[in-house]
């Protein structure tokens, strides 16, 4: 194996070349990076604007204040700062998405790998399980659990979301492992006496990074999608003002009538998150699935 720093530099160079070559990937990464930067600087921006007070504090301003230099998007019925909550919501939504996305991808990689690599009865059982998971509407079940289990913090809600969003990713991973398994170099590794785990970690995984990223972005989107939906029907941890919570707040607070652009801003932020992640997905698929690139040809 190469030395680690060399490998990292190589990976970096590889990714920058990849980015330069695909417009969708480039735009997606650019938008998503901007949103992440917004989420990272949120605490500093809001501290600068509001001092030591949180933007979702009740009574920060008056009720339904119009936009002003202090509150660029006005305030909610209870005097909370909507602009600050938009930034805070973006941060929380992304954290929940990333956290549960990573856990869901880990579950998907594990199950997908075991299923495809081992084959036989294990594969059959896992595949039926994954298929059932995709056909049965699991989202209502998630809603029920979220409604009855009252003590949901950031970690708990993320883990719960992860449990419900690994199905699609597991399918992608399984299919890819199956196709990789047939390649010559894997047979070579088996013949040369490598153990299963060694083969999985040193031979299969490195050839697999793009699919893991695709699964990750899928799982992140799935988690954000489910969390926002949960918020729109008025459920979810009230102490976590995510973008979905803010959207529900502005919709039920009558902002559609008085200041519709506030609703538009919140929706736009959510749409940008979904859009950028999807562009990354499509871009990666085009790069690593040449057949797809040839046929879409866009």
């Amino acid at each position, binding site marked *: 194996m190469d030395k680690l720093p060399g490998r990292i530099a190589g990976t970096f160079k590889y990714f920058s070349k990849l980015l330069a070559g695909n417009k969708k990937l480039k735009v997606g990464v650019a938008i998503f990076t901007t949103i992440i930067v917004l989420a990272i600087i949120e605490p500093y921006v809001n501290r600068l604007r509001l001092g030591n007070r949180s933007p979702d504090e009740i009574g920060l301003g008056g009720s339904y204040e119009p936009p002003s230099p202090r509150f660029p998007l006005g305030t909610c019925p209870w005097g909370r700062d909507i602009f600050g909550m938009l930034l805070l919501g973006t941060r929380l939504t992304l954290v929940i998405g990333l956290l549960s996305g990573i856990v869901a991808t880990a579950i998907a990689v594990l199950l997908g790998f075991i299923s495809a690599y081992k084959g036989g009865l294990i594969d059959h059982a896992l595949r039926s399980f994954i298929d*059932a998971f*995709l*056909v*049965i*509407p*699991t*989202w*209502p*079940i998630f*809603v*029920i*659990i979220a*409604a*009855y*289990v009252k003590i949901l913090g950031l970690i708990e809600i993320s883990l719960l979301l992860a449990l419900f969003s690994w199905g699609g990713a597991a399918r992608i991973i399984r299919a890819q492992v199956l196709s990789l398994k047939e390649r010559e170099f894997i047979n070579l590794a088996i013949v040369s006496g490598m153990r299963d785990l060694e083969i999985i970690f040193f031979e299969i995984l490195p050839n697999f990074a793009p699919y893991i990223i695709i699964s990750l972005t899928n799982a992140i989107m799935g988690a954000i*999608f489910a969390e*926002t*939906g949960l918020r*729109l*029907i*008025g*459920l979810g941890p009230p102490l976590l003002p995510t973008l979905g919570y803010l*959207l529900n707040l502005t*919709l039920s607070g009558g902002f*559609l*009538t008085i200041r*519709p652009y506030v*609703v*538009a801003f919140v*929706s736009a932020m*959510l*749409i940008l998150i*979904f*859009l950028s992640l*999807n562009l990354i997905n*499509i871009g990666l698929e085009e790069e690593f699935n040449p057949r*797809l690139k040839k*046929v*879409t*040809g*866009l």
Partner: protein
Amino acid sequence: MHPLISYAAKRILTYLLTLFIVVTITFLLFRLIPGDPISSFVGQLQAQGRYAEAEKAQQIIEEYKRMFGLDKDLFSQYILFLKELLRGNLGPSLIGFPRPAQDLIMERLPWTIGLLGISAVIAWALGLVLGCMLGWKRDSAYDKAFTTASLVLSQIPYYLMAVILVLIFTYYLKVLPSGGAYSPKLTPGLYWEFIKSVIEYGTLPALSLIVASGASWLVSSRFLTVTILAEDYLHFAEAKGLKTSRIIKRYILRNALLPQITGLSINLSFMLGGQIVLETIFSYPGIGYLFATAIGLLDYNVINGVLLLIIFTALTANFILDLLYPLIDPRVRYHG
């Protein structure tokens, strides 16, 4: 045995088994949740200050538990639940007490079936046909414009699409209503004005479903068409001098239909769950809105009923598609 019969028998068995497992899991779901459903409900009422005295609340809990059969052990509860379920009885609703939950659900069901059924069919057919046409005319200006637009649209969750459509059509252009299923001034009945009102109020919720899911159908069927166009049998069909319409109908649509029909069952399960958010946004009086209301008040018989109905529909649709599959795909007929 004829391969078709063994195929059907296998599907029927799998279907019944899955149904049984899912019903059991949903039964356990409500029992495994900390605190039984009745106590949660009464706790909710207490939090709202409706029952002040704890002693009285305890009495109510005991009374309800007896009425709902929750005072017996888990296994007899399960048997009772299955028995009543087979008779179509879900037990009394807590919010609509003493009306049974299935009454509340049946009242709302036609709205959901109408809205979801019509928009799902339109989205699917429109996506399939447009996708095939764009694939046929690949790399034309139309293709580039429509496919890119659909790629973007298909990535926007249907509920955000709903919010955007309401913003545009209800609040900026003021041309379409949102909220409810018909004008509150009218009494339901079979007369033109009422039907017109139902269509008017149904347009925006239907449109959000059609745009969001139609766009993704379009993208996938265009992709399929382009893949099929590269196949040898298609070149052969062209070389034979077959008419374009025949090639499109017999060779492309037929082959693109197959994967799109399998996709339909996954899509349906997704849309059924999505109905909960969509109907809530539009205050549309279907089972999705009922579910959201019931869950806000922890009315577990209604919640359980809607959940079972949604899962049953998804599984049954999937089962029917499975049975129809050999009729469309001859390969399944011979290999089972």
